[in-house]
């Protein structure tokens, strides 16, 4: 019961989300979007010209046919017929060239705009601080950068082609009225009916289509879930139940797609009726007028040829309208992202930092992620040149925040952080990151080769890569991969283990060769074996460096020169292993209970 209610809710949500993507015209969004077109002004102008030329070429042809029939054929004027033939070929060429140019120019500009907006968003994303670029939101960011920009590009193309459609309507109206106003009036009476039909039908059809799409994505979602969970399913012998559930979803979608098909195909009879009615109107009225002599036969033929062209632009314009609505909603989301202020910027006169010793000092540092929820309070400590310091404490004690702050991922509330006596808020961020190596809790692997992953952005040679790899102890396993350092690692490194991924990210940090080396809970997902390997590597790496090791397993930091024990954002005690044991405080309590981590102390 509960699941079926939930499922219905999901369908409704999916539809509402799609419908919610429609919003009315917004001048502000349009104005800002227009700025992106500006660089391609001349090209866009060419595009508009070619659209107009194309429209004229298309619409001139029935008129030319009329002229040929009434003036050349009816009057037996063969030389005029020959000249008109050449003129027709001229129009065909004009049609050809303008058609080619309009398609290329408009769609190319569309692609350029797409590229520009996406690049701008991407660059902006790189500048935003960590608090904004929270990974939990990445799905929505992805859909903005990829999906919404596409909708905006569509708007541009639809917009230019809409000019052609409007122009077509206007020119046809003028032409048929000048040819014969009474017949034109007759046709014009039918068009509102067609328009009304479209306006009545379109939202209903769209709703049916969206419903079908929503239930189809539910089917795919269930398929995905069942494929991912196939091992559990077989373990639990649920194959039959799952098959039934899946077939039920498929059946729902089958019915939805069928009702969408009914809407899609159902428009044909009324539209054909209207087209037929228009043609017979021309036949009867034209017949009377032609035989009465007030209208030439060519006019009747021209009317018959124009009728077809009258329906298309109306159809297209009603479609463009929903494109516009969708684009406006997308535009809102895009500009919303671009409007997020960059909260950590280089100071005006920021200089590159100069790190020769690697001394780190926290002076009265207050920090909070959310307003009035302090994470660090009045923190004071000094880490000296070449010292190895362990930061320990229970979850939420603020140890990871300290690492992020040294790197200025976040801005502190009060106090100062100095590296070699330079305030990190007064130096450039790029120089700061070049002087701090960090190994993070989640080893991130980018798709690419092993070598590319170790190098990341550094300009290192193969030899340097191998050397770093040897130091951290990843060389051995890399050599067992089919293509060694040229082996392509799959998305998020699915083809190697977590421990191996961590070794690679360790090598990556080492290659940066900076004076300060931070391990941010880098060993928490790792088995005892790999951890020992990393321990050994660390000793070598930290020989001439300042090291900060954040861990919640005590074995990891036991040998540090200094251990800082944190609790609730404050320092509880500082000292080396022996000293802390003799303190008989938090550290000692943990150690004597033989617990492996602080979180076990409840």
């Amino acid at each position: 019961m509960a699941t079926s209610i939930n499922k219905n809710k999901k369908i409704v949500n999916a539809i509402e989300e799609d419908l919610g993507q429609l919003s009315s015209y917004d001048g502000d969004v349009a104005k800002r979007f227009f700025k992106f077109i500006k660089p391609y002004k001349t090209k866009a102008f060419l595009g508009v010209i070619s659209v107009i030329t194309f429209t004229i070429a298309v619409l001139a042809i029935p008129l030319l046919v009329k002229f040929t029939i009434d003036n050349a054929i009816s009057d037996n004027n063969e030389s005029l017929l020959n000249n008109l033939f050449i003129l027709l070929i001229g129009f065909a060429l004009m049609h050809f060239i303008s058609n080619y140019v309009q398609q290329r120019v408009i769609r190319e500009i569309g692609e350029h705009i797409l590229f520009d907006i996406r690049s701008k968003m991407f660059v902006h994303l790189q500048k935003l601080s960590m608090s904004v670029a929270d990974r939990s939101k990445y799905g929505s960011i992805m859909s903005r950068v990829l999906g919404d920009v596409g909708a905006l590009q569509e708007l541009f193309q639809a917009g230019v082609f809409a000019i052609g459609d409007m122009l077509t309507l206007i020119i046809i109206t003028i032409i048929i009225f000048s040819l014969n106003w009474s017949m034109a009036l007759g046709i014009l009476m039918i068009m509102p009916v067609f328009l009304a039909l479209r306006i009545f039908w379109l939202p209903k059809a769209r709703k049916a289509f969206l419903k079908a799409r929503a239930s189809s994505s539910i089917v795919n979602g269930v398929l995905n879930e069942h494929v991912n969970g196939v091992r559990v399913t077989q373990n639990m012998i649920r194959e039959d139940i799952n098959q039934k559930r899946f077939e039920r979803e498929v059946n729902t979608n089958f019915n939805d797609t069928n009702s969408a098909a009914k809407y899609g195909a159902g428009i044909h009879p009324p539209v054909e009726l209207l087209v037929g009615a228009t043609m017979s109107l021309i036949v009867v009225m034209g017949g009377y007028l032609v035989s009465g002599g007030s209208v030439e036969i060519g006019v009747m033929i021209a009317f018959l040829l124009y009728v077809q062209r009258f329906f298309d632009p109306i159809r297209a314009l009603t479609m463009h309208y929903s494109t516009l609505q969708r684009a406006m909603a997308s535009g809102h989301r895009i500009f919303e992202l671009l409007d997020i202020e960059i909260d950590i910027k280089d100071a005006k006169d920021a200089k590159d930092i100069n790190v020769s010793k690697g001394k780190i000092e926290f002076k009265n540092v207050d920090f909070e992620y959310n307003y009035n929820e302090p994470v660090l309070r009045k923190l004071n400590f000094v880490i000296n040149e070449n010292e190895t310091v362990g930061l320990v404490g229970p979850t939420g004690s603020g140890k990871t925040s300290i690492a992020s702050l040294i790197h200025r991922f976040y801005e502190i509330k009060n106090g100062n952080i100095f590296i070699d006596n330079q305030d990190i808020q007064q130096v450039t961020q790029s120089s700061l990151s070049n002087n701090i190596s960090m190994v993070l809790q989640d080893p991130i692997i980018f798709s690419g080769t092993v070598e590319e992953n170790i190098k990341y952005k550094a300009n290192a040679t193969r030899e340097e890569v191998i050397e770093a790899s040897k130091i951290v102890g990843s060389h051995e396993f890399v050599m067992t991969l089919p293509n060694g350092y040229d082996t392509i690692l799959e998305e998020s490194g699915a083809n190697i283990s977590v421990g191996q991924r961590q070794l690679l990210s360790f090598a990556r940090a080492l290659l940066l060769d900076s004076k300060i080396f931070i391990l941010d809970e880098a060993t928490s997902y790792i088995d005892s074996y790999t951890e020992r390997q990393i321990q050994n590597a660390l000793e070598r790496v930290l020989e001439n460096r300042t090291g900060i090791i954040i861990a919640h397993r005590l074995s990891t930091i036991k040998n540090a020169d200094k251990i800082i024990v944190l609790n609730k954002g404050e320092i509880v005690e500082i000292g080396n292993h022996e000293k802390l044991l003799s303190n008989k405080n938090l550290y000692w309590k943990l150690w004597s209970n033989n617990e492996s981590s602080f979180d076990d102390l409840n």
Partner: protein
Amino acid sequence: MNIKFKSPLHLNSHIGELTVLIRIFKMCFKYKKLITFGFLGVGGLVGSQLWIPYLLGTSVDRAYEKISSNSTDFSILWILASLIIFVSVLRGIFAFLLQYNGEKIANGISADLRNLFHKKLQSQTYKYHDRIHTGNLMSRGILDIEGVKMFVTTGLLRTFEIMTLIFFGSYLLLRTDLQIGLIAFGFIIPVALIATISRLRLRKIWNRIQKEFSILNTNLQENLIGVKVVRAFGGEDYEVKKFRSSHREVTNDTMNSVKVDATGTSLVGFFFLLVWAFIIWVGGHKIIDGELTIGELTQCLVYLGMLQRPVRIVGLMVNSYARAITCGLRLFEILDSKPRIATIKNSNSINKIESLKFENVGFKYYFKSKKNDVNKINLELKPGKIIGIIGPPGSGKSTIANLIPRFYDVLDGQILINETPLKTLNLNNLRSRIGLVSQHTFLFNSTLKENIAYSKPDSDLEDVIRVAKIADIHEFIDSLPQKYETMVGEFGVSLSGGQKQRLAIARNLFKNPDVLIFDDSFSALDTGTDKKIRERLVSFQKNRSTLIVSQRVSTISHSDEIIVLDQGNIVDRGKHKDLVCKDGIYKTIFELQNPKMQVKH
């Protein structure tokens, strides 16, 4: 370039291309009623459509005749007008029949394929799923089924429609005037060719764009997921460069496709107008010479306009056949695959597992591997007994666990249950007697209750609560506002690794199995919870056999027997108190995990 073993699904067609199409057609002809109505639609549509030019041409001629005859009898015009309306309405109805039934068939086929596909994947072995990425399978299940569906919508009935329309249209055109008809062929043939060539070229480019776009997609995703690395390494500029260059690829190929498309469509339009001009020119001279009426010329022009659409669509059609063959091949390859592990004929069923024995068991994941991943494994497990397995990563611990419910089949030796070989047992019966808590917990997008009672939905909540208590997750669930009806997974509450593992334990306890296997399933629990669950399990384990795989000494130290594995071989076995005194892997692991003990030594 891929380091995973080559997917068995390379496109070395196990069946011919024609077979693919025939199989798709066969599936369609299952829908006899829909097919009949669909063909009725095609016939009616073509028939009524071809009337319209004739009616219009005749109308023009009758109107023209009136000028000279000065007659006041207009009834013929009224008749023609009503005929035009009548034929148009018929055309609309037949168009509806064609499209509606065509789409219904396509929807039916898509549903059939989805069900077959799902069924096959549910029954395929672990090995199969290990080798083929979910992403790969999903793209087949979504895109390839969509490709076949599109083919049925556009390819099946429409091919017939277009062919008959072109055939009869050309015939009528030729009959109206042979010369003009022949000129029209000057249009039909090159346009059909151009449309087909540019479609096939576009298809190639689109496939490329799709690949490039997925790279761009990965790029963006990795940038967002790896934001900390990017920041930590100051890699912002590098990332922008990477993004731009992969986007540039997409843009360039899109531009290429625009070029091909624009050339194709504008050429088609050009040829159409060219023929139009020639027909008017030749027709004009013929009218002057009295060989043709103005109405007949109009008729020809309208015929030509009518032929324009089907001729253009020929390209689309050819494309949909090409796509259907690729998609169909990829789909049938999966649908035709046979699960390697299944119940044999004359299988046995058991009521309770009284004994479980490994006799010289050997196994390797990849047939090509030089040596076995586990080798010469001997062990015996009886109700009430606990065996612990420990060893470094990659030593084969999980492999042993996965062989018991036949998730993989042994290569050497044999596994006996109640003294009968595993392979002679009914698969579902066997698996229902075993609860294997695996290393990675997978939760379904459903309620907590459903996730625990996964093996038997519609169970009483009490039974669910009972196992949840043993797995030490009841208190947490009870603290949630919706308790056991709380949704988990993508749309629900997010759970910690430890909570997920506890759910997985509860889920397997719920099966009420004879053999309980914990495959490193305490790893995300803190030592306290680990201990608590093990204590609560004691009474549950009384009449059951237990196998615990772990990297943590404390999790297995209480076992009746501990097996120490290294590189697939048993290197030591015994009780904790004995093993910890011997130099070896066990002692090393113990010391690594208990630094305080090490100090004591």
